[in-house]
C-alpha cells in the first residue's frame, strides 16, 4: 500500500474505497459484523518524519471515516475512531493562522510567522524555523543553525522534507510519543465512551456494544 500522496487511483483503491467494500461484504452477515480499518501509513510517514505524507494519509483516513458514516445505520451500528498511540511531532511557536495547505499555500507545513506582525519568527540565532517539529527524528543540524542556509516555505513543505528534531535518530526511526490519544464515537452505544479511560477499556466497551 503506497502513501496516499503517491497512490495511482487506476492501480490501487483508496482507504475509503476499501472501507466501503469491506462494509458491503460484511454487512451481508445476519449476525452483524466487526470491522477494523487502520490508516497505517500515517504511522509509517511519521517514523520517517515526513509530515506532508502523514497529513495526506490523515485526510485519506478522514475520507474513510466519512465513507463509513455514510454507509451504516447508526441506530444499530457503533463507530469508534481512535489512535493506538501518538508520535513526537509538535506545533512550534505562536504561529499565525495558516489556512489549508494548497499548491500556493504551505499551510501547516510552512515556517512560523508572528501572529501579530506577520514577520518570520526567529530562533535564538536569528534563523527561521518550521511550524512542525519532532522530539526525535533524522534531521538535526550539526552545529549552529546559523551555519546552514535558512529554511524557506518551499523547503519545509516538500513531500520528503524531514522537520528538525531535538534528538537525532537513524533514518526511519523516530519513535512513538507517550501522550494520551483522542477517541471519538458515534452510533449505538457511543455514549459509553466518555472522559479519560485506560485503552484496554475500549475493548470492553466495544464488546458491550454487541451485547456480550
Amino acid at each position, binding site marked *: 500500500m503506497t502513501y496516499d500522496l503517491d497512490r495511482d487511483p487506476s492501480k490501487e483503491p483508496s482507504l475509503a474505497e476499501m*472501507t466501503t467494500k469491506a*462494509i458491503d461484504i*460484511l454487512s451481508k452477515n*445476519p*449476525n452483524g459484523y*466487526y*470491522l*477494523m*480499518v*487502520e*490508516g497505517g501509513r*500515517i*504511522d509509517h510517514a511519521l517514523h520517517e518524519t515526513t509530515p506532508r505524507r*502523514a497529513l495526506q494519509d*490523515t485526510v485519506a483516513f478522514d475520507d474513510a471515516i466519512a465513507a463509513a458514516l455514510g454507509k451504516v445505520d447508526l441506530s*444499530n*451500528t*457503533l*463507530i*469508534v*475512531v*481512535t*489512535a*493506538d*498511540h*501518538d508520535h513526537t511531532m509538535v*506545533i512550534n511557536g505562536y504561529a499565525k*493562522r*495558516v*489556512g*489549508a495547505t494548497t499548491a500556493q499555500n504551505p499551510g501547516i507545513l510552512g515556517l512560523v510567522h508572528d501572529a501579530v506582525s506577520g514577520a518570520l519568527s526567529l530562533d535564538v540565532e536569528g534563523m527561521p524555523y518550521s511550524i512542525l517539529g519532532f522530539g526525535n527524528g533524522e534531521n538535526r543540524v550539526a552545529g549552529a543553525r546559523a551555519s546552514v542556509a535558512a529554511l524557506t516555505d518551499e523547503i519545509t513543505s516538500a513531500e520528503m522534507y524531514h522537520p528538525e528534531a531535538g534528538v537525532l535518530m537513524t533514518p526511519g526511526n523516530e*519513535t*512513538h*510519543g*507517550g*501522550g*494520551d*490519544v*483522542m*477517541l*471519538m*464515537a*458515534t452510533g449505538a452505544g*457511543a*455514549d459509553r*465512551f*466518555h*472522559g*479519560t*479511560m*485506560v*485503552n*484496554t*477499556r475500549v*475493548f470492553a466497551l*466495544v*464488546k458491550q*456494544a*454487541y*451485547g456480550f
Partner: protein
Amino acid sequence: MNRSVSIVCAALAFVAACGDNPKPPAEGPPDAHVQPPAPDAPVQAAPPTRVKNALVTDSAPSMSAYMTGVKMDNDVIAMSAETKGSSRSRT
C-alpha cells in the same frame, strides 16, 4: 438483534480540528476546513496508551490493548499480561 460494530484505528500523530477554534478571525486566511461541531457530534474520550513496562508503547501492545483488553509489555502482541518480549527494533 442485528448489531454491527466498527472500530477505525490509526496511528494518528495529532487530531487538530476537534479542539480547534470554530470561528477563525475575520482577517485571517481562509479556514473553510474548520467547522463548528454539529449538534450530534461524536462523543469524545482520551485513552492513555502507556504499557506495563514503558512510558511509550510500541505498535504490538497498543493495538493488542484495543483487540484483547489486556495491558501488556512492549515487544508483546496479543499475549497474557505476564508475557515478556525480547528486545528488538520497534515500529
